C-alpha cells in the first residue's frame, strides 16, 4: 500500500522535455545576468513586454530583408562525396531514443490551395523524377555538417498536384509532433526537395523516414523530418520553433 502511495504519479522521464523547456525559458530569464544588467534588460521573447515586442518587430523586419536577399536562381554550394560528414549528427527537438517509427499505412496528405488533394503513397512519390544533392546543413546553433540527400524537387511536386504557386506559404506537418513552414519562393528553389533517400539509402527513422523536407537555403530546423502532411496557404502557419521565437524566414 505505502509503496503504491509513494510511487510518483508522473515519472521523471515523462516530464523531462517539458522541464528542460521550462528551465530554458523561465528560470534563466528570472536570474540576473551581466548581459541583462548591462543592457538593462532580461528579455528573451517570452515576457510580452515592450522590449520583447520590439525584438519581435525587428525579427519580422529581418524576415523581409532576408526575403529580399533571397534569389530562386542562387544555388547552395554542392560538395564532393568525400566531403560528407561522418558520423552524421542526429538532431531533433527530442533525444534520439524518442524517434518515432513510421506509422502503418503511411501516406502524405495534402491540404489548402491544392487542386488534387489525393494523398500520396511512398511508391507514387518514388515514381516522380528524383534529384540528388550533397549540401551543407547549417544548424541555428552554429554547427554545420555536409550530407547527401535525394528525392523529388518540391517545385515539381507542387506543380504536379496543382498547388497555387502564387500562395505565400507551404506548411509542413510531421507525425513526430513537429511542424514548420516556408515561403513559396524558397519552396520553388530547385534544391528544395522532398527527400526519400539519405546517403543513397531509403531514409532511416532518425533521418526522417519515410519522407522529409531538405532545403539547403534555410537553417536546419526548416528541413522537417517524418512528414505526414503538406498544406499550401496564405495564412501564416508558424511552426514548432518559430512559435517560440526562432526567426521565421531562417534563410542562409
Amino acid at each position, binding site marked *: 500500500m505505502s509503496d503504491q502511495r509513494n510511487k510518483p504519479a508522473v515519472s521523471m522521464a515523462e516530464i523531462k522535455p517539458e522541464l528542460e523547456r521550462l528551465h530554458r525559458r523561465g528560470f*534563466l530569464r528570472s536570474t540576473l*545576468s551581466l*548581459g541583462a544588467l*548591462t543592457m538593462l534588460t532580461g528579455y528573451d521573447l517570452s515576457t510580452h513586454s515592450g522590449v520583447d515586442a520590439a525584438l519581435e518587430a525587428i525579427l519580422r523586419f529581418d524576415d523581409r530583408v532576408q526575403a529580399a536577399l533571397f534569389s530562386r536562381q542562387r544555388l547552395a554550394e554542392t560538395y564532393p562525396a568525400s566531403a560528407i560528414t561522418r558520423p552524421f549528427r542526429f538532431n531533433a527537438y527530442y533525444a534520439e531514443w524518442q524517434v518515432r517509427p513510421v506509422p502503418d499505412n503511411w501516406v502524405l496528405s495534402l491540404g489548402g490551395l491544392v487542386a488534387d488533394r489525393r494523398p500520396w503513397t511512398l511508391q507514387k512519390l518514388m515514381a516522380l523524377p528524383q534529384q540528388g544533392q550533397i549540401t551543407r546543413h*547549417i*544548424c541555428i546553433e552554429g554547427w554545420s555538417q555536409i550530407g547527401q540527400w535525394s528525392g523529388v524537387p518540391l517545385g515539381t511536386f507542387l506543380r504536379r498536384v496543382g498547388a497555387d504557386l502564387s500562395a505565400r506559404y507551404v506548411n509542413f506537418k510531421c507525425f513526430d509532433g513537429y511542424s514548420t513552414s516556408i515561403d513559396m519562393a524558397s519552396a520553388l528553389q530547385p534544391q528544395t526537395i522532398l527527400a526519400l533517400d539519405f546517403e543513397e539509402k531509403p531514409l532511416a527513422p532518425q533521418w526522417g523516414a519515410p519522407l522529409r523536407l531538405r532545403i539547403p537555403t534555410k537553417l536546419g530546423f526548416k528541413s522537417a523530418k517524418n512528414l505526414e502532411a503538406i498544406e499550401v496557404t496564405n495564412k501564416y502557419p508558424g511552426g514548432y520553433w518559430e512559435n*517560440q521565437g526562432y*526567426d521565421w524566414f531562417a534563410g542562409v
Partner: protein
Amino acid sequence: MDQRETGRRPAHSVAIRVMHWIGVYAMGCMIFSGWEIYNASPSLPFLFPAWTGLGGWLGGALAWHLSAMWLLFADGIAYLVYGFASGHFRRDLKPPRPAELGQDLGAALRFRLKHHMGHYNAVQRVLYAGVIIAVILQVTTGLAIWKPVQLGWLAGLFGDYPIARGIHLAIMFGIVAFVLVHVALVVIHPRTLKSMIVTVPAEIEESR
C-alpha cells in the same frame, strides 16, 4: 594650425561622443548575446558563464544579435562617413611612423606615456584604427555566416561557412581584448571618461 585655436576645440566633438556611446551599447548587446549563441554549440572547450549571456536562450540571444546588428551597422556607417568627411581620421588617426610607435609603446609599457586630451599618441592611434578595422571585419564575417548562400561570395572570401564562423569568434576575442585595455587606461586617466561625456577643451599638444 594655430595652437590657441587647437586649444579651444573640444577633445571630442558632440557627434563622436554620441556615436561612441551608441556603439558601446550596440557592441555590448552583440558581445553578450554572441556569447549566449556560442554557448548553444561551443567550438572551443569552454562555455561563457550563463550570467554573462543576453537573451536567456538561443532564440532570445539571436533576436538580440539580429536586432542590435542594425544599430551597430547604422552607428558604424555614420562614424565612417563622419570620420572621412570631417577629417577626423586624417587628423587624429594618422598611421604613426615605426620609430614614433616604438618610442610611444616603450613609454606606455613603462607607464610613462603622456596623454594629451584631444590628441592621440602613436599607441592610441594604432589601437583605435585596429579596433575600427576589427569591427568592420566582424560585421563582414557576421554577414557571411548569416547568409552563407545568398552572400556566398562573401563566405567564400573567408574560406567557407565554418571558417568564417571561426574568424567571427576570433575577432570577438580581439575586440574584447581592446575593450579591456581601453577601459583599464580610462581607469588610469579618469578625466578622459569625462571628456567622452561632456565638452572638455582639447589640450595644447607639446611640440615634439
